[in-house]
């Protein structure tokens, strides 16, 4: 099969080809070797005006000419540059017997399979303790906050049980300049990066010290200091943002990447596919970290998607992909470190699918025993747990013992309750915060509304109990 002139012309307008030719791809990471095997850069016979088809990795100006070689056994299209012809009619299927491997570093007893994983554990004692302590803190904080929601002291909470290893393991491998777009079950990332207990509590109680000025529901943390973008309730919107943040880092030439977290349920959203496709085509240094925890609220994974998990989607988008045991904090650490290296040095996205089991209910609004057996959860808890695994790892190295563990847990519980009580007693944000930050400066209408409210409150003081807000009545600042 060869392409005749008219067919080529109809496939791509001339304008494309001429402009594309002016922007030769400097890196040409695209399938170049594969293309070269099947195609050759054409030499136009003199006197003809035929222009060849182009092929590239999708980025603007990265396309370059390819040509079908006469008698070739392969097809050369811009969209499939190295596809062998076959006479066998055969539909390719997702084969459950050939699922993508799951990377592991240590077993459920904390024993390292192969000490040559490139991790010098002996020098990592301090980091290990930090990781362990972060995971334990999250798990104790979760218990306290879950109970406090049940007591009606906060409106909502999401616990991280069973998934602490993914958040903390990955966070430990990231740099301070890396930009984080999380979903909502990644408190461990913040904990490891140094978000204070008071900051967690201030956010959950939406008090005057909350960075978000009391505008977000609990667990929707944000921290400019830690490069952690505000968590959004709308599912999966953070994924394209991470692609964009990665693109911004690329344009600015920074040695950092964007990192986004999401669940396997969120991967059913269109934004997931949009984000992966655009990150791949634009070469964005972005890590997509999927927490595949078995349930999307009540929908079990098997009803959520078909095929070989989220990892197979990454491969489909032409993205370097790996599946990892999410209960193995060291495996998560290792793959994140490698992925970050790839993303930054090769300027492209990487997908990590971290497998785990959601021990907790989806949120405080959910009772998961309505759709799964209690024994299933208990089995999982007994069989494997990221915190236990890391503890056993430390115990095997004589870094840790039972006494130290109970001491740590007692101290953490005390610290958390202290921050909890302080945050609960703290005043709510000033009333004028209601209008601020809708735009960079309040609009005329908003300033007028503030002044009106101040006026009404002044005239009817008995109708407005403003004692709980910072600065009370004076918290309404009108700047006409």
């Amino acid at each position: 099969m060869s392409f005749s002139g008219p067919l080529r012309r109809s496939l791509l307008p001339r304008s494309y080809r001429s402009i594309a030719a002016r922007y030769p791809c400097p890196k040409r990471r695209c399938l170049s070797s594969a293309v070269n095997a099947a195609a050759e850069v054409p030499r136009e016979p003199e006197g003809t005006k035929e222009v060849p088809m182009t092929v590239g990795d999708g980025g603007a100006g990265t396309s370059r000419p390819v040509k079908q070689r006469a008698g070739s056994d392969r097809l050369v299209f811009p969209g499939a540059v190295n596809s062998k012809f076959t006479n066998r009619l055969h539909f390719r299927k997702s084969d459950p017997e050939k699922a993508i491997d799951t990377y592991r570093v240590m077993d459920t007893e904390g024993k390292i399979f192969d000490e040559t994983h490139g991790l010098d554990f002996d020098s990592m004692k301090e980091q290990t303790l930090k990781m362990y302590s972060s995971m334990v803190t999250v798990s104790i904080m979760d218990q306290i906050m879950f109970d406090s929601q049940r007591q009606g002291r906060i409106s909502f909470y999401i616990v991280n049980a069973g998934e602490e290893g993914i958040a903390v393991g990955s966070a430990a491998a990231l740099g301070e300049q890396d930009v984080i777009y999380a979903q909502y079950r990644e408190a461990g990332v913040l904990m490891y990066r140094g978000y204070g207990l008071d900051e967690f509590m201030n956010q959950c109680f939406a008090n005057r010290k909350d960075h978000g000025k009391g505008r977000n529901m609990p667990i929707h943390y944000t921290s400019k200091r830690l490069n952690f973008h505000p968590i959004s309730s709308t599912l999966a919107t953070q994924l394209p943002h991470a692609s964009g943040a990665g693109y911004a880092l690329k344009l600015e030439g920074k040695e950092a990447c964007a990192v986004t977290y999401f669940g396997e349920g969120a991967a059913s959203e269109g934004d997931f596919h949009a984000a992966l496709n655009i990150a791949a085509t634009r070469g964005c240094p972005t890590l997509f970290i999927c927490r595949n925890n078995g349930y999307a609220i009540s929908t079990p994974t098997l009803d959520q998607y078909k095929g070989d998990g989220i990892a197979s989607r990454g491969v489909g988008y032409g993205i370097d992909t790996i599946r990892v045991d999410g209960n193995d904090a060291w495996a998560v650490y290792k793959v994140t470190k490698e992925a970050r290296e790839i993303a930054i040095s090769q300027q492209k996205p990487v997908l990590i699918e971290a497998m785990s089991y959601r021990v907790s209910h989806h949120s405080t609004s959910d009772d998961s025993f309505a759709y799964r057996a209690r024994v299933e959860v208990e089995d999982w808890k007994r069989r494997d747990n990221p915190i236990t695994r890391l503890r056993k790892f430390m115990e095997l190295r004589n870094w840790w013992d039972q006494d130290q563990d109970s001491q740590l847990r007692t101290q953490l519980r005390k610290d958390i309750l202290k921050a909890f009580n302080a945050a609960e007693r703290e005043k709510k944000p000033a009333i004028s915060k209601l209008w601020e930050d809708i735009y960079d400066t309040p609009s005329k209408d908003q300033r007028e509304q503030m002044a009106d409210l101040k006026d009404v409150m002044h005239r009817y003081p008995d109708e407005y109990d403003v004692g709980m807000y910072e600065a009370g009545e004076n918290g309404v600042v009108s700047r006409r």
Partner: protein
Amino acid sequence: MATRLLSRTISATLNCRTPSVSNRSIASLSRAPYRIHHTPSPVSKFSIQQTRTLASVSDSREYTVREALNEALAEELEADPKVFILGEEVAQYNGAYKVTKGLLDRFGPDRVIDTPITESGFAGLAVGAALAGLKPITEFMTWNFAMQAIDQIINSAAKTHYMSGGIQPCSITFRGPNGFAAGVAAQHRYVSLPLCYASLSTQDYTAWYGSIPGLKVVSPWSSEDAKGLLKAAIRDPNPVVVLENELLYGQSFPMSVAAQKDDFVIPFGKAKIERVGKDVTLVSLSRCVGQCLIAAEKLKSQYGVEAEVINLRSIKPMDVEAIIKSVKKTGHLVAVESGFPSFGVSSEILALSMEYMFDYLDSPAQRVTGAEVPTPYAQGLEAMAFPDEDLIFKKVAGLLRV
């Protein structure tokens, strides 16, 4: 999918029509189909004359709205390295409507970006880049396609600054053609081409975005509007929605010397009195401003009625004071827009008139809007779905009982 196919087919057809044109002259290739708008039609002819009488600077030059937008983009890309533009076909094809003509050549593929056909994807990427400190300009092939990305525009772009406690600004511009695409003038002369776009580009989203706190929304009519508002949008630290109109792209307007300079911006929240009058106030936006001016001329010639025509320019924030001032003078108010009647821009203007202008009105405020039907495709039906000069004329005449 069908609509996408349609627009692709049209693009392809356009190229095929001029096969002899050399590779490099993409400009002339692209101009060919749009020449229809340069052909004097009743609307454009009038508009030019009308604005000429208002433009006082003798050194003004004729600009099409397309050229004005292009100049605005080029100047802002030049001025600020943080600015970049992305969208479907904006780079190699120079934009589906050629608004981004020449930008790829000038600024390169890192800053003028062809995206996959994924509105939620590239709008989301742009929001992410804005959150990271860049200033993206997102072109939607039409605002209809932006429905795929409305979650990103509203839930992410508009709200993040507030939800983050003011620490996370999102300086981003969303732009593209909005509202009806095949108006009366084009329809009479060129049935085939503009009508192809009709069914995919004839919904007006002004009210949708105008209702969202956190967004700013502008809708240019003339070339000066287009340049000044777009430049202001790109510089603004907030997310701004720029609702252009496809039928105006090819229309020429005079551009004053000041507006030709690269520091020209139009402040948001300021309406422009396009025609001074004393008998009735016509408040309008986008292409309907031109229709109002024609209706106003006809009202004058037939009844001696002097209508004041207000071009809102900026929908959010809206210049309510300009409307109040005018109504104080005229005592009558008619809002004119091409959107659906329910919960629309004119509904808002009429509600504002009850709140702020009740005492000044000598008659109930009225509105002229698009029909409450999904825009039909067939030629005659489509015309009936949108306001035209005659309808505005009749409505005002009826209101004033002349």
